[in-house]
């Protein structure tokens, strides 16, 4: 499979780097690694310090007005739910950072890694403690951004780049929906503060925009938490270094969507739509993911699919209103975070030490890496849900909760059983098989990892066992406050290892049996599952590719059509737009106002008009450019004569002078130019003609309408009155130019000077280059 990770990435870089810059890059400063763990540790302590109070039912609030004009505050809400998440994030973060310092030791971009992962952690913490929708969204997007950088950490690999982009765009899409949802929700609630919104559940559910709000927010949550059919980005995101996967793609970021569902529970849950959507999407995700998980031989990918399963399960349970179901969700959240992080880290150790993650070649590692084996075993047992692990409690609670779900207990329970059975099998594949049996050859000779690497998984796995033995700790510290926060009402939750013989226990037994069966059959099942998967018509990944291809094709098509590189087509569109929009407005706004009678005109007037028109006509139809220029000259002279006839000697002079200079310049330039070729005939020409007439017609109609309105001459009258007494000039036009509107003239001479400067640069710049 060859997923490049950590060390492989750096090795890969050395091979492609060509050698020139590597010397500088090889040794990053070491001090960040030594202090990076301090931040999560400190944060963990801070959050743990809040635990007693929050477990007691208190809520910590703090607010700072960030953008008050937009109703955005940097406000913090620490209740059972957010604190649970915060402790998981900072706690696992601590172990992951510690782990990374060994896992990525010597990596040239190690310090960037710390920067990214700590930024991610802070964003994630910000997300869960935010009490303001917009602030929450800000952190939400920041997790997307930092995870993009982390997934693409192995940047030289095209696969990593693609996966990073996929995760970014997919969760980004959800993020945008979420933003819209938040804005509408904020509008509906009249506030962006969660504290306000969470107590408005009844009003919100009755709001006319409830459905769009819900759909948009769910879109955000489902993409982030990789619910079917958006699940495919998560396995691809395994291109990231293993600590990243352990952290982002099991314990934290993917749970952001779950967090959101839990957070919004008091405000939005309880409706048919909520229940059914969450249940169906969650169940589908759980089942499909479990099946896909068994198919994998890459340990990390297998874990990734079980993560999907867990996310589906959590979603499914959050669809419910019942406190047991929600308690199941919270418990499973904690359970899953502990064992899944541990297992990911174990897989990382295996990979790091043996050089491979292929389940088919990994056997008998227990002797070489005993501590890792213990951690793996403990975590796997929790994952499989064996007593007395916390995983067992979580599973029992799930079944209890499933059966308590009023709407569809059978569906939920079945999905839970199937998923859990598969989980048992996968636990065997991932944590049992590699350590047992006889050693097979691996790329590297395995030996135990350094303590910084195994301490994390071991502690997390041991916690899974100890909390199983003392479930009240979890219940009081996390589950009960969490459920209270999610349901928005006080709930009493007790966790017990032993409930007596009841339906959940029976289901557990069925699960184990089924799980063991699946494990023994898994090597037989795997090719068949792969075959089924291959035949399955819709693969998210392929659809994704097709979507992107479609986008590119659409973009290319649009560019061909609009920005085809042909000037006259551009001009045609511009003129057509002008004609259509202005012409249509003329018509629909009833602006046409034709004069009643045609004025009588002296023959001189007619003659001059005829001269201008004829000059234009010659320019238009002649094939000789000289004739065209002469035609322009005639137009120019004609217009000058018009200026003469209507009292504008200054204009006539300027017009003639400018006209002459233009002719001179054209004559100079034309010496170097070829004769005009004939224009193509046919429909293009006819279309051009129609358009040209259209533009002319529009201009004439507007002119005529404007001329129907009597002109307000007050500005000119003022000029006439003060020109001599105040501006001391008898040529009013000149006084306007150099005094009344001197600023115009100033700009105008700047234009002329710059035109000369620009043309000079154009002409002489080339001359100098040629001479060189």
């Amino acid at each position, binding site marked *: 499979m060859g997923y490049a990770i950590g060390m492989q990435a750096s090795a890969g870089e050395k091979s492609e780097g060509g050698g020139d810059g590597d010397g500088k890059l090889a040794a990053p400063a070491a001090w960040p690694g030594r202090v990076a763990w301090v931040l999560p540790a400190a944060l963990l302590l801070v959050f743990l310090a809040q635990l007693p109070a929050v477990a007691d039912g208190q809520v910590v609030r703090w607010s700072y007005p960030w953008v008050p004009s937009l109703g955005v505050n940097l406000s913090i809400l620490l209740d059972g739910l957010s604190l649970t998440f915060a402790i998981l994030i900072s706690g696992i973060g601590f172990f992951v950072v510690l782990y990374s310092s060994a896992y990525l030791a010597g990596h040239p971009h190690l310090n960037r890694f710390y920067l990214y992962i700590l930024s991610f952690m802070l964003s994630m913490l910000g997300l869960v403690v935010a009490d303001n929708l917009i602030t929450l969204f800000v952190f939400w997007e920041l997790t997307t951004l930092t995870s993009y950088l982390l997934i693409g950490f192995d940047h030289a690999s095209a696969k990593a780049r693609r996966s990073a982009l996929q995760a970014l765009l997919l969760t980004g899409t959800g993020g945008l929906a979420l933003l819209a949802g938040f804005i509408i929700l904020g509008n509906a609630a009249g506030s962006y503060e969660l504290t306000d919104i969470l107590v408005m559940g009844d009003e919100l559910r009755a709001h006319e925009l409830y459905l769009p709000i819900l759909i948009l927010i769910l879109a955000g949550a489902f993409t982030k938490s990789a619910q079917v059919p958006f699940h495919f980005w998560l396995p691809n995101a395994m291109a990231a270094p293993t600590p990243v996967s352990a952290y982002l793609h099991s314990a934290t970021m993917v749970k952001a969507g779950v967090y959101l569902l839990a957070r919004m529970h008091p405000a939005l849950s309880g409706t048919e739509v909520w229940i059914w959507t969450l249940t169906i999407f969650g169940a589908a995700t759980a089942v499909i993911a479990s099946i896909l998980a068994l198919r994998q031989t890459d340990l990390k990918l297998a874990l990734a699919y079980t993560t999907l399963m867990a996310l589906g399960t959590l979603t499914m349970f959050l669809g419910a209103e019942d406190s047991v179901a929600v308690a199941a969700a919270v418990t499973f959240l904690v359970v899953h975070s502990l064992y899944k992080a541990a297992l990911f880290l174990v897989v990382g150790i295996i990979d790091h030490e043996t050089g491979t993650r292929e389940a088919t070649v990994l056997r008998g590692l227990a002797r070489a890496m005993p501590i890792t084996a213990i951690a793996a075993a403990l975590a796997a047992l929790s994952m499989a849900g064996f007593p007395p692990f916390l995983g067992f409690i979580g599973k029992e609670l799930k079944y209890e909760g499933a059966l308590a779900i009023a709407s569809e207990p059978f569906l939920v329970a079945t999905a839970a059983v199937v998923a859990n059975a598969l989980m048992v099998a996968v636990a065997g594949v991932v944590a049992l098989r590699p350590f047992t049996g006889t050693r097979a050859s691996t790329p590297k000779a395995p030996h135990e990892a350094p303590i910084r690497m195994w301490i994390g998984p071991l502690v997390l796995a041991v916690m899974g066992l100890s909390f199983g033995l003392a479930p009240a700790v979890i219940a009081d510290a996390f589950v009960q406050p969490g459920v209270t926060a999610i349901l928005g009402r006080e709930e009493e939750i007790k966790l017990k290892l032993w409930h007596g013989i009841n339906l959940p226990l029976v289901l557990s037994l069925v699960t184990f049996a089924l799980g063991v069966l699946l494990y023994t059959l898994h090597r037989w099942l795997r090719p068949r599952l792969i075959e089924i998967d291959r035949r399955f018509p819709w693969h998210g990944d392929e659809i994704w590719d097709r979507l992107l291809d479609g986008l590119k094709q659409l973009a290319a098509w649009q560019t061909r059509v609009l920005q085809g590189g042909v000037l006259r087509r551009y001009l045609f569109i511009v003129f057509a737009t002008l004609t259509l929009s202005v012409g249509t407005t003329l018509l629909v706004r009833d602006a046409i106002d034709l004069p009643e009678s045609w004025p009588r005109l002296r023959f001189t007037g007619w003659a001059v008009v005829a001269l201008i028109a004829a000059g234009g006509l010659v320019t238009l139809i002649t094939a000789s450019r000289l004739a065209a220029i002469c035609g322009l000259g005639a137009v120019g002279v004609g217009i000058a004569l018009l200026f003469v006839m209507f009292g504008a000697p200054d204009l006539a002079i300027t017009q003639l002078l*400018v006209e002459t200079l233009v002719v001179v310049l054209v004559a*100079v330039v034309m010496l170097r130019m070829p004769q005009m070729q004939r224009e193509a005939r046919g429909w293009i020409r006819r279309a051009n003609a129609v358009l040209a007439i259209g533009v002319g017609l529009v201009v004439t109609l507007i002119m005529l309408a404007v001329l129907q309105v009597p002109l307000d001459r007050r500005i000119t009258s003022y000029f006439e009155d003060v020109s001599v007494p105040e501006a001391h000039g008898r*040529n009013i036009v000149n006084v306007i130019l150099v005094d009344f509107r001197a600023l115009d003239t100033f700009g105008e001479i700047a234009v002329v000077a710059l035109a000369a*400067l620009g043309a000079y640069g154009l002409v002489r710049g080339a001359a100098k280059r040629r001479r060189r």
Partner: protein
Amino acid sequence: MNSLILRAATRILVALMLLFSVYMLLRGHNEPGGGFGGGLIAAVGFALYAIAEGTDAARKALRLEPRTIAMIGLAIAAAAGIAPVLAGDPPFTGLWWFIGGGEGEKGLPISSALVFDIGVYLVVIGSVLTLVLSLEEEV
């Protein structure tokens, strides 16, 4: 251009044109003309000179590079615009001095507007000649 007749004519015509251009510039405030018209006629004169005697001769006759003339003109116009600010008036306010004015007679007017128009005049000459000469030399 190699034409004796044209060269001989140009001597007289250019002198006449320059004379007329200054005349147009100076009386532009009261009669048709002004900086543009004047400048354009002077530029036409020099362009004729360049055609008849060659661009090098025209450049020599101008002494300054045409682009520089244009920029100096722009500077003069800007100065005429800014000067009133020093007198406490808004930019481009006309400042007028009447030299030798007495009872009833205003005297010879000197004004910022005239200075401005001189700037316009120079810009037009400089710019048009930049264009004409550089194109002429290239083609």
